[in-house]
């Protein structure tokens, strides 16, 4: 991505931005986040198919935000996350410049977040076929089969909270799991603690998750926890007519329609 490196250098040299967030080579053939502050740091920037981590998770962090205006290399899921964060007043035009990378691996620099939104809206959020198959299989099970499936799947979880750290939407300074008065989520990673943590995560992401799979990619145990958020995404579509992050709109769970349909309230 010579173009990307060139542009990052220009921005840093001119002082337009104080930090460029991108990917660099990490250990064991993996990529990691790069925070380029000096123009020469930008030489390390890379972009390839291994770059799956959602960089938008860093733009809400005080250590990064505090440096001044940020520029971020953003793939489509990252751009979606940025728009969702903008709608939640976490970022705005004055502190973020988006260097977009299209699904065709072309670089486009966006003038402002409204342009990013227009770009993002060209693509709908689709659940990948391999996941919809899994979801369908789960839907066909009886509730108690699903219960055993989830208790089994969640049992290896040792609550490292990598899913939370990787998620761009999990930016609360104090997360529910850190509250101990009252203790909402049991601290130990036994079946109940794991179940409640993952339920809480899924419900807090309902109507906000942009389906980037960062949580799943970050999980050291490969727990299919993204199935939970995907389920929420499908339900949001089914009940509240689709979901696409938008700067001006309220997210689905903070708004309502007087004629929302339900079929279970007596």
């Amino acid at each position, binding site marked *: 991505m010579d173009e990307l490196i060139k542009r990052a250098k220009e921005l840093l040299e001119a002082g337009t931005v104080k930090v460029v967030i991108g990917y660099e080579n990490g250990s064991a053939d993996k990529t990691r986040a790069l925070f380029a502050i000096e123009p020469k740091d930008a030489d390390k920037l890379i972009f390839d198919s291994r770059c799956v981590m959602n960089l938008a998770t860093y733009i809400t962090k005080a250590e990064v935000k505090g440096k001044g205006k940020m520029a971020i290399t953003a793939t489509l899921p990252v751009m979606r996350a940025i728009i969702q964060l903008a709608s939640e007043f976490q970022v705005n035009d004055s502190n973020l410049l988006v260097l977009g990378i299209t699904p065709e691996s072309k670089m486009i620099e966006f003038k402002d977040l409204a342009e990013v939104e227009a770009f993002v809206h060209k693509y709908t959020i689709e659940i990948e076929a391999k996941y919809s198959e899994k979801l369908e299989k789960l839907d066909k099970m009886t*509730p*108690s089969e699903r219960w*055993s499936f989830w208790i089994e799947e969640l049992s290896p979880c040792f609550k490292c909270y990598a899913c939370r750290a990787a998620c761009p939407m999990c930016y609360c300074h104090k997360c529910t799991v850190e509250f101990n008065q009252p203790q909402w989520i049991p601290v130990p990673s036994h079946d109940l603690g794991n179940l409640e943590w993952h339920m809480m995560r899924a419900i807090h992401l309902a109507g906000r998750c942009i389906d980037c799979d960062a949580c799943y990619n970050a999980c050291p145990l490969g727990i299919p926890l993204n199935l939970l958020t995907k389920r929420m995404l499908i339900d949001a579509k089914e009940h509240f007519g689709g979901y696409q992050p938008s700067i001006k709109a309220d997210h689905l*769970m903070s708004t309502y*329609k007087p004629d929302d349909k339900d079929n*279970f*309230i*007596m």
Partner: protein
Amino acid sequence: MAEFEPKIVAFVCNWCTYAGADLTGTSRIKYASNVRIVRFPCTGRIDYMLLVKAFDEGADGIIVSGCHPNDCHYTSGNFHARRRWIMFRSLCDFIGIDIRRIKFSWVSAAEGAKWADIVNSTVAAIRELGPYEEYQKVAKKPVKEVING
């Protein structure tokens, strides 16, 4: 052991269902005594985690009830709650929590008889389903013997 008496926790709003349950009493309508009512300012205040906690603590069934749509004391609390219930119920179903054990209803302050019906039908349904052993096994709390509901 005596016949299984389900433990039901009811999360109700102050303005409609709680007043409705009060009316059930003042109208001298008899209904099952298995229900423990927890009063909230509004259905919008009923955090889904509280429902989960009720199961943790050994509830066999849950009733969540508030004002009919458009009747909320705070204008829109129940509309927000409804969206949350839709998503929460679906998540519970997906995780495998028995959603037959969670009943949602709208009961106004004038519907004392409806409240009695809802409690009675829920208790009957839960009695049929039996204790929620599946969840209690995971929650690993000692199941105490229920004395007369």
